């Protein structure tokens, strides 16, 4: 009983120090090489000479990018740089009401197209090894897939991490996002964007036990400073959703969740068909075994609709957990070096 009280006191003292507010995420040195609207392309300063083609990381539009550079030693970006892979990252920024009318084609076609163009120019100026690869995480991967379907020659290889492809296998999210029950048009018509706080609350409701579980984990690691630091950084990131631009959200939910169009077909962006079968470059699909947002079948469905060879890897962990674990960067580096 004394130990329980001791742990309670340790947790209380930890929380008193405002660990969530003071967590410093996204600390790997970088320079913005291109801006468009709220989004930016971040070029990370190399820590060793480049030995592989540069990679463009497309992050999801629903959170900040820092989860892939959460803390030193817990950063996918840092590990890629250490392995000699030049890293560029698409940071979508914080869309505002003025972005509500932007269609999905603005992000998945025009903006990403410009990103690849500017990265290619910058990489040439740095004399990096020839070629360009891409990695998409979560919804960022879905946007990357749509972009590559429209521009199949854009990259040499593409990796998709916890990326929903078969949305009808997305577990509870697929159940909730049913055309008959989910008031998609009411949200976009009334609010313009899908607000960050609603998104945060829906993710919490997705697995209500997660709310208590995180406190229990903190309590169990009451005397583990490394865990506490990671816990605080993840809490900060988790609470930092961004607004999803309305019209893009409407098309995304309608085409992906309602129609499952990446698998079923019939989706056109800018009058061009979105067909993953058109993309012949090698792809990697990484799924997290305990992912309740994008379960492995939803991610690995890539193998059945992609035009080129697809390697599938399932890593132990949850949707966010894999991003801060050590297995994901090792998997990506091995694949990029193959």
């Amino acid at each position: 009983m004394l130990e329980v009280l001791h742990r309670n006191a340790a947790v209380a003292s930890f929380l008193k120090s405002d660990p969530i507010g003071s967590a410093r995420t996204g600390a790997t040195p970088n320079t913005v090489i291109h801006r468009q609207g709220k989004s930016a392309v971040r070029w990370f300063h190399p820590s060793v000479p480049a030995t592989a083609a540069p990679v463009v990381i497309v992050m999801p539009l629903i959170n900040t990018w820092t989860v892939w550079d959460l803390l030193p030693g817990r950063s996918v970006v840092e590990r890629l740089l250490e392995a000699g892979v030049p890293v560029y990252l698409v940071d979508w920024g914080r869309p505002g009401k003025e972005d509500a009318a932007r269609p999905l084609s603005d992000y998945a076609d025009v903006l990403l197209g410009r990103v690849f163009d500017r990265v290619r120019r910058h990489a040439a100026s740095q004399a990096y090894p020839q070629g360009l690869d891409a990695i998409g995480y979560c919804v960022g991967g879905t946007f990357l897939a749509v972009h590559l379907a429209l521009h199949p020659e854009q990259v040499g290889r593409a990796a998709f991490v916890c990326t929903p492809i078969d949305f009808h296998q997305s577990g509870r999210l697929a159940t909730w996002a049913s055309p008959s029950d989910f008031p998609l048009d009411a949200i976009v018509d009334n609010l313009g964007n899908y607000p960050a706080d609603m998104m945060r609350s829906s993710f919490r409701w997705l697995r209500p036990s997660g709310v208590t579980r995180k406190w229990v984990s903190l309590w169990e690691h009451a005397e583990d400073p490394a865990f506490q630091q990671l816990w605080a950084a993840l809490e900060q990131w988790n609470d930092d959703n961004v607004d999803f631009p309305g019209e893009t959200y409407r098309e995304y939910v309608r085409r992906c969740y309602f129609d499952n169009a990446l698998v079923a077909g019939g989706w056109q962006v800018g009058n061009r068909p979105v067909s993953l079968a058109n993309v012949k470059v090698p792809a990697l699909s990484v799924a997290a075994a305990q992912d309740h947002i994008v379960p492995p079948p939803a991610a690995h469905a890539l193998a059945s609709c992609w035009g080129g060879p697809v390697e599938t890897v399932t890593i132990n962990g949850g949707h966010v957990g894999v991003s801060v674990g050590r297995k994901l960067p090792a998997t990506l580096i091995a694949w990029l070096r193959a």
Partner: protein
Amino acid sequence: MARSDGSQMATEMYEAWEKSMTTWWDQVLESPAFLKSMGSGVTQQVQGRRAYEDAVDTTLEKFHLPTRADLTRVARITSLLEDRLLSLEDRLLALEDRLVASEKATLQARIDAGEARLAAEDRLAAIEDRLIAIAEKLGSTLEEPTARPRRGRKEG
């Protein structure tokens, strides 16, 4: 840290509770009744937010202050202008690429022309050498009859 019985018991109790709650939540959160009420609840929530935002805008208008809608409109115009600027930048970069490619092609053509000229000069020089050689040969052939004794005639 090794766990005491108390802490172990607390963890086990929590895990049992979590398991039962998860099962319960799974039933609730995927039931048709929940989906229906979630849909109507979200609709009411967004309509309420919209009504609040409209009310705030109306109040600001009455005080002759810019409303959020005004600011959004201005920001949207700026954003569209930026899009146009970026499209122009795209076209400029494409033109620059074409210019660089054309400069490269021009340079290559000049190099090729220079090399062709050198080759032509070499060929001309070779032809000239051959002509000189032929001329010399011809000259010596023309001079030969005077220099050489005539055949068939014996000097008396």
